């Protein structure tokens, strides 16, 4: 007479619970990272957290070597991400400078250039080549570009007088009028 005796030994329940919790936690972490990556840029309507931008020598703002976004409360901020290795950035460089020259006397609009993943000598050469005069600085540690989740350069972010993003331009501007029309949306 023979019989099959069931095997009772196995992984203890608490070990199984820990393993499952670990797997679920890991999958959740991967999910969060993937969804953040696919979110795209910061969307209009978002309040932009404060950040500090160090400025290139010769491109300071009112003598200051670094500025914060909060310094410009009450003013409209045009934030342009660019790089010297970026060919499309060259297409809009003259338009941005012309728009800056138009708004500079009024003092209601601030233009800030953020040099993305660039070397300083090349960045400076670019600024000189296109005669840029508004404040510019490097994106140290790519912290600002990560905050805006930029997908590439050029990208320009328009932040209103209350620190809220209201327009995102991906790619180069085609004319000065295009820039002016976006700024005009928020100027009285």
């Amino acid at each position, binding site marked *: 007479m*023979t019989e*099959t005796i069931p*095997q009772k030994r196995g*992984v203890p329940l608490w070990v199984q619970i820990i393993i499952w919790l670990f797997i679920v936690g890991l999958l959740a972490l991967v999910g969060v990272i993937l969804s953040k990556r696919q979110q795209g840029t910061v969307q209009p309507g978002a309040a932009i957290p404060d950040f500090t931008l160090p400025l290139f020598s010769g491109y300071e703002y009112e003598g200051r070597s670094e500025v914060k976004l909060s310094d410009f409360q009450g003013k409209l901020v045009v934030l342009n991400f660019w790089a*010297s290795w970026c060919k499309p950035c060259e297409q809009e460089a003259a338009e941005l400078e012309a728009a800056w020259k138009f708004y500079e006397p009024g003092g209601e609009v601030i233009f800030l250039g953020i040099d993305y993943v660039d*070397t300083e000598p090349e960045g400076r050469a670019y600024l000189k080549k296109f005669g840029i005069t508004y404040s510019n600085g*490097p994106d*140290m540690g790519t912290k600002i570009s990560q905050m805006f989740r930029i997908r590439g350069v050029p990208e320009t972010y328009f932040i209103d007088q209350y620190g809220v993003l209201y327009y995102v331009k991906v790619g180069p501007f085609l004319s000065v009028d295009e820039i002016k029309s976006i700024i005009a949306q928020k100027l009285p």
Partner: protein
Amino acid sequence: MNAIAKQLYCPVCESTPLDVCPTEACRQWRELIRTQLSQGMSETEIKQYFVDNYGARVLAEPPRTGLNWLVYILPPVIILAGAFFLFRSFREWTKPKVASAGSGAERTEASSPDKDDYVTRLEEELKKRK
């Protein structure tokens, strides 16, 4: 120069090491490394410069801090856990699972004292009936 460039990744072209990346941004970075080497900077100093300027994600090997530790700990832990469970499973598959209750000669480890008692009583009953 290439030895250092091999350990860096430009954020513009995420999956291509700096030493073989053909983009203009990476060419500029390689040029910068060459300049820094000619100025006498060490490999560690150059890598630190790149981390300070472009973030830790430029490193081929993430620094051993915070959540980055998962990259170093998880794979060996998963491999060891997998090997352990495989070993356990193989051992259980190869164990004899069938016990001969009649003779009492072969018993599996899983036999409980209650079972032994039951078998003993059964054998006694059978002997009485013979």
